[in-house]
């Protein structure tokens, strides 16, 4: 077999150095996606730098009312945190909507963000895929693409990002904390993943060698009504056909704050800024919700076999928005 080095890092500094010293290295979290991709031959790392022993499994209340979740906190633990369940319920719901119990026990917060698309052409090394092998073509655009993107896709790539968790983080204005040899920085969760454009091989804004050290759930969405809803082919252990995460605050009869993100529609969690813009300042009525959501989804360009995603995403969004504002509407 293709052998690889295995390095167990004790600190982020050590991990970044180990990575830099080994061309072709990959960071290893829970391994629920990377190890599969290695078996498929999609990933052929020269070295694995294991991050799971890093001291990044803490959950901290920050003085400003935000919450920092370490990158090595397992998905099951993240979903079960009382602070998350109480103050950012959309995140807990999203995590629990993903994968299976066994996978959530192993998967990490950082790894969940960095998982790759489940596009079947990406996973099959005998077929063309611009994400896996730039310039080889896209099998999905004219192929089997019921599960693929309707927003923001490019001629090069129609893949979707598979994470449920990332959709909630995007809607909740969470921030992703990164460590690299050039220092630490933060990126808004909504901006962390990219659209494919002509570089579908790049999923995120992460720089080579950078490590996700944690995510910060901000005070600005803490305690606000939020929810996540996902439609899927079976009741558990299936990726979203479409999903939505939303946080909405109504004050004095009008929407004062709105964060909405769609999942499974695009190469990244699709933050619905247009819809949010249309909603803020409006009364939380059915008409206002429909107008806002339609405004957002007007940009959709479905492929031959996935037009259903647009009405599905619309219905999910209207349902979640209606439920989140029910008390303010009565």
């Amino acid at each position, binding site marked *: 077999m293709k052998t690889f080095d295995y390095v167990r890092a004790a600190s982020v500094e050590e991990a970044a150095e180990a990575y830099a010293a080994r061309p072709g290295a990959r960071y290893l979290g829970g391994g629920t996606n990377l190890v599969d991709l290695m078996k498929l031959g999609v990933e052929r790392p020269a070295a694995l730098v294991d991050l799971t022993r890093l001291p990044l499994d803490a959950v901290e209340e920050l003085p400003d009312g935000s919450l920092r979740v370490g990158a090595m906190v397992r998905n099951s633990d993240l979903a079960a945190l009382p602070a998350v369940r109480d103050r950012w319920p959309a995140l807990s719901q999203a995590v629990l909507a993903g994968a299976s119990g066994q996978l959530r026990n192993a998967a990490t917060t950082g790894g969940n963000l960095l998982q790759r698309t489940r596009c079947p052409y990406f996973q099959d090394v005998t*077929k063309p895929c611009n994400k896996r092998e730039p310039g080889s073509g896209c099998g999905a655009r004219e192929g089997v693409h019921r599960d693929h993107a309707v927003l923001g896709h490019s001629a090069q790539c129609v893949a979707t990002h598979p994470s449920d968790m990332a959709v909630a983080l995007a809607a909740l204005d969470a921030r992703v904390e990164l460590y690299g040899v050039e220092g630490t920085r933060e990126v808004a969760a909504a901006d962390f993943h990219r659209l494919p454009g002509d570089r579908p091989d790049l999923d995120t804004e992460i720089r080579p060698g950078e490590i996700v050290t944690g995510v910060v759930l901000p005070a600005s969405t803490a305690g606000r009504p939020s929810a996540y809803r996902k439609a899927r082919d079976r009741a558990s252990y299936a990726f979203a*056909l479409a999903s939505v995460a939303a946080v909405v605050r109504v004050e004095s009869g009008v929407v004062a704050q709105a964060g909405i993100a769609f999942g499974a529609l695009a190469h990244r969690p699709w933050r619905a800024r247009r819809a949010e813009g249309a909603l803020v300042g409006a009364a939380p009525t059915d008409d206002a919700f429909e107008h806002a959501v339609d405004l957002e989804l007007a940009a959709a360009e479905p492929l031959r076999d996935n037009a*259903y995603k647009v009405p599905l995403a619309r219905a999910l969004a209207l349902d979640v928005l209606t439920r989140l504002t029910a008390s303010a509407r009565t």
Partner: protein
Amino acid sequence: MSGIRTVVGAPAERREGREKVTGAARYAAEQPGTDRAFAWPVPATVARGRVTGVDATAALALPGVLAVLTHDNAPRLAEPDDPTLAVLQNPEVPHRGWFVALVVAETPEDARAGAAAVRVTYATEPHDVTLTAAHPEAYVPEEANAGYPARTERGDPDRAFDSAAVRVDTAYRVPPLHNHPMEPHATTARWDGDRLTVHNSGQGATVVRDTLSALFEVPAERVTVVSEHVGGGFGSKGTPRPDVVLATMAARLTGRTVTLALPRRHLPAVVGHRAPTLHRLRLAAEPDGRLTSVTHEVTTHTSRVKEFVEQAATPARVMYAAPHLRTLHRVVALDVPSPSWMRAPGEAPGMYALESAMDELAGELGMDPVELRIVNEPDTEPDSGKPFSSRHLVECLREGAYRFGWAGRDPLPRSGREGPLLVGSGVAAATYPVQASPSTADARALPDGLFLVRVNATDIGTGARTVLAQIAADALGAPLDRIRIEVGSSDLPSAPLAGGSSGTASWGWSVHEACTRLAERLAGHSGPLPGEGMVARADTTGRADAVSPWARHAFGAHFAEVTVDTVTGEIRVRRLLGVYAAGRILNPRTARSQFVGGMTMGLGMALTEGSTMDAAFGDFTECDLASYHVPAHADVGAVEAHWVDENDPHLNPMGSKGIGEIGIVGTAAAIGNAVHHATGVRFRELPLTPDRVLPALLAR
């Protein structure tokens, strides 16, 4: 025999249960061997063509790689009856995924890396993998699977249809489906000189032994095939698969014990699938519901390797009294993997279509769908005119309706609503033929008071060991714990495979005979037994396969309650009830497991399962258990199985009918009919996933 002493009908616990749950049970790929090597196949990456070159240089240079088998260097085989076993015999590529090389290495990882390093070049040809009802190459075959005639016709179904008072002319589609047993197809093979020992995950070791004997031209007595534990097959292990041939070849070429466990991703192309079926049904009835004409026409695909025709129009030959009846199968040979058996081939897709159409007819008639089926109960088998040995479909329907609470149902579609959920219920009938094949067995009374019963049955997870021991205990008049049973090796008395819901009938018949004979001998014996004990043998040839003057089938009724989410189009099954008339139930514990398992598989067929043929590449897109959606636990609500007692003297000494397949047969239709009741929308293509359901709800 007394009711107290009998153990047939008792819920005896599975004999190998402890071994399985503790991990002590060894499967085919888990056989120890100090010289063991591992193999990994190389699948073709073109949909049609021929191999022009295989460059194994890089693979052979990798650490651990022992050999690369190709059509150039693989051992020559005698021509097999099943052309899918002629692997590495020529450069032709009949479909994508066909094996074109095999790498043998010291570890599975080395073999996988070696397979990735093999360079294969092809001359490609245009391919066609798309089935359509109007395909120009569709033809009517001589026969469908299991030897059924492809076409039957009685009366003048077209004229009767045209002149009928009430008519339904409708079409249904069932996509390709895959068996995907938990344990992949796997073989460990070893040659000791000219003696071959094979551990194989299969549904019948005798047929595998005979196949290997023929292919490798070795006398059968020098071949031993062991299938001690099998992690599911559902038909896909009913015939030997390429793994057993490849592992045996590799063992011969390398002189090592070779294990080949097929990778999950390779399975969809090489171990069969349920072929897609396109159904057209025309039902005509009098206003009182009595059918006057039934036409069921099916178009399906097969591969260019061999003809396999899913016999989906055959249930209409059994189910309902109609003076005018036509059933017809058409098939198109495409550049697709070879289809094969999957749990209730024919009945599962055929009854989905027929029982959905019957529900449409009930709607046209304004008649209760349970009553419609009762009104059309035939006196004799419609196709053959034979009397039924036993037929209690009406009792199943009535018992099911009672248990389900059908009586209070508002028949109006879309009449049930709970907030955003539409709630509906549906019914469908089920049928499965009674089959049996000749089998041998022996039974030995040992001096220590134990009995040893030997038969090459295969326990594919059904509880065969347990039930055969019960049959033996009754025939011997001995307590169950005195019976030792040996199954799962071709060195045991020959027996047919576990398939066609006929295993227990076939094996049990010979076990019953051997044990009855032994009991008679023991009764005439006085004094202690000799050291080797006393043995009796049985061979049911000529009786198990005798043509019966009776039409013999199991029947059943399925009831389903579903919710349909109007926001997402997601469907959930709240309740599933099956009531069966399947002869004598020999072990209610293992029987219930089979019924419930079949119903769960039917739930998957209705709601979640489907394989997509990629027109450009010629393979099935879903090739792992993350994308091929078998139901998860969360999909399965309350599932209940019951049965009505049947006393049928025309079957076998146990009075049993097969129960392994009928559970899947009516389930998909019952769920589909419940979805129609819930939504008012008739969906005619499976599976009922949100991408189909929501747009239809919105368009309504």
